[in-house]
């Protein structure tokens, strides 16, 4: 197999030189290979067929994972997928303005999310419904963002899960600053220390803020795990449009380790995330993880992937489903019986039904909500606008418009 560099940047051949904008036929083929395989440096502990493969470097980070733990990881993934599908359906039925599906990225998010401790801090992008689940945040608390009633209702201080950030890459710098603060406060240095994990996608790696975040976290030795979910597509643009180099290799240029993990392998993602967090706790951060995964659904419910990608690519990734490989492993080793799978499915359906019921009964936000929190301190100017508008609305209280 060719080296990772060659997937996106092959040796020169006869004919016109390839560029990022006009890839050669070889690069196109190489790109597809990169998309479908992940390469020899991919850390994988569970194959798509559910085989546990040994990894001398990372086995120890999941040596304590029991059959019960694996069942719990399975349950997490099934439940977040079920909630995701329910929310997607709610959008199709007009109950949500938009939904951002996580389908296919369950292992990346649950593996990372379950590696975190309560004392760690998380900065998500806007697709991290699975990580939110691991932080004890109900899908209900996310729904308002997409129904248009609020921008997220969880307590980010208590849950240590920052609000969703929609401007691509902004949160990477915010996370770098937070992690710098952990270091300045002396919360770094041993296994009991704190760390921060920030989530972003392959598209975000082209943003200046992400590059600046790499620089800042590196020069301040911040305990920050950069968790890049490379789901292969930034809306319609493939990863080849963002980088000539496999993304994890960028870390080298900033002076910290980068690693590519099979993002559809929850066990490998858990192991690599634990390793990376451990490095950060001991003062060896930052670390970049590229979780190699696939966005099985559209970018959002407004997107139409049939315009820019082939269905055979999707079919190929279906064979690498993150949930199925764990199910196969549990069955093969007789770590779970049908009753278990039935009960997980029942829990998932109950979660979905509860989410649906909640969505239907979500109250409209009060008008004053938009005025009341612009500033922490008193704001007579905004208050006056609010009062004037409320009085204006009250004029119509009798129904006369």
């Amino acid at each position, binding site marked *: 197999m060719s080296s990772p560099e060659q997937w996106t940047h092959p040796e020169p051949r006869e004919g016109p030189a390839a560029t990022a904008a006009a890839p050669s036929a070889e690069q196109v083929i190489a790109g597809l290979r990169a998309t479908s395989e992940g390469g020899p440096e991919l850390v994988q502990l569970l194959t798509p067929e559910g085989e546990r493969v040994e990894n001398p470097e990372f086995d120890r980070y999941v040596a304590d994972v029991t059959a019960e733990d694996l069942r719990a990881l399975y349950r997490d993934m099934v439940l977040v997928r079920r909630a995701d599908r329910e929310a997607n359906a709610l959008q199709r039925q007009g109950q949500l303005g938009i939904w951002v599906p996580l389908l296919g990225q369950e292992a990346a998010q649950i593996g990372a999310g379950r590696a975190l401790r309560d004392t760690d801090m998380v900065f998500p992008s806007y697709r991290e419904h699975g990580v939110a689940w691991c932080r004890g945040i109900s899908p209900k608390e996310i729904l308002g963002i997409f129904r248009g009633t609020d921008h997220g209702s969880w307590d980010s201080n208590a849950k240590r899960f920052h609000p969703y950030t929609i*401007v691509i890459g902004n949160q990477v*710098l915010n*996370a770098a600053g937070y992690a710098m603060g952990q270091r300045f406060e002396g919360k770094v240095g041993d296994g009991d220390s704190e760390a921060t994990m920030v989530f972003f996608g392959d598209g975000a790696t082209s943003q200046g803020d992400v590059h600046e975040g790499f620089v800042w976290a590196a*020069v301040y030795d911040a305990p920050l795990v950069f968790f890049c979910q490379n789901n292969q597509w930034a809306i319609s643009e493939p990863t080849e449009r963002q980088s000539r180099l496999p993304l994890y290799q960028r870390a080298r240029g900033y002076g910290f380790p980068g690693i590519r993990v099979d993002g559809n392998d929850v066990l490998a993602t858990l192991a690599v995330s634990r390793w990376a967090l451990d490095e950060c706790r001991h003062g060896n951060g930052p670390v970049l993880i590229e979780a190699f995964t696939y966005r099985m659904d559209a970018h959002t419910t407004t997107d139409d992937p049939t315009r820019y990608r082939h269905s055979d690519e999707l079919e190929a990734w279906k064979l690498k489903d993150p949930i199925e490989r764990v199910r196969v492993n549990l069955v093969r080793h007789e770590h779970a019986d049908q009753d278990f799978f039935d009960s997980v499915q029942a829990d998932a359906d109950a979660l979905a039904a509860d989410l649906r019921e909640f969505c239907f009964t979500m109250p409209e936000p009060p008008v004053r909500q938009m005025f009341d929190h*612009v*500033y922490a301190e008193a*704001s*007579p*100017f905004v208050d006056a606008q609010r009062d004037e508008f409320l009085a204006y609305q009250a004029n119509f209280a009798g129904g006369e418009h």
Partner: protein
Amino acid sequence: MAAPVISKPNGSATTQSLTLGKALNLGLRTAMEADPKVIVMGEDVGKLGGVFRITDGLQKDFGEHRVLDTPLSESGIIGTAVGLAVRGFRPVCEIQFDGFIFPGFDQIVSQVAKLHARTLGRVRVPLVIRVPFGGGIGAVEHHSESPESYFAHTAGLKVVACSNAVDAYWMIQQAIQSDDPVLFFEPKRYYHSGFMKAEVDTTATPDPLFASRLVRAGSTATVVAYGPSVKVALDAATAAEEEGRSLEVIDLRSLSPLDLQPVFESVRRTGRLVVVSEAPSEASLTSEIAARVQQECFYSLQAPVLRVTGFDTPYPPAKLEEDFLPDLDRVLDAVDRSLAW
């Protein structure tokens, strides 16, 4: 640019004669002593003490973890300050020059300004962004701009501008104590100028941060200014007095929120208003003031609100900046036109 030589402050135990720059330095020092969560961050603010020496000596006394020489990355300065603020710090960011704030604009508008509202008040972002602003120093491009209107336009931000040493000392401390993000504009032209040197009594009770101040009483016309333009307005008032005209001068101090009640009261007495700012006029703070004054003082106005501002051009090469900047003569000309209406 070369650093001017700054003499040691003198005076009594609680009153010191300070330049605007030295007053800022003392204010920062006092805030850092009062609260260990206050940290200063920016390009060259540590060993060098900042290109204007405003943070001189702070790193030596408070250490490298409280006075951060940062990478050359304005989005990074603001973006990491947001994370530090979420963590519980009170960062004071220095943007080296007005024209360099724009790489950080996204973080300021998208995160700094909106996090509190986004979280319905659960997350506070108590950070200060110090910006040396305005012209008159003969600099190259991007070193003389007045970008304050962008930030006053953005909900969630507070914006202030100091014009003298006493305010500099107090306002920087008040901005740091504020639980809201504050853009803090400093008239760089007067950092080390004797014009703005003043006796600073560190035991005095300061005026509120978000309040304008009547700095010269008068009856013929009202002149409103802020930052470096306050001196222009005061000089114009002195010159006008020789012609028997009594100009009232108000220093806005706070640009968002605007404290315009004193302006309204003044205009109701004088019937005439001239607004002075180095920023271009279109869609600016001076437009906002003109709109609000006509709304509140419509029947008191004897003439339209007139504005003396920088032109709606990019800031010009230094040889032209004296023509670009509002000066005493242009202010007096505007007063003449107002009176002749």
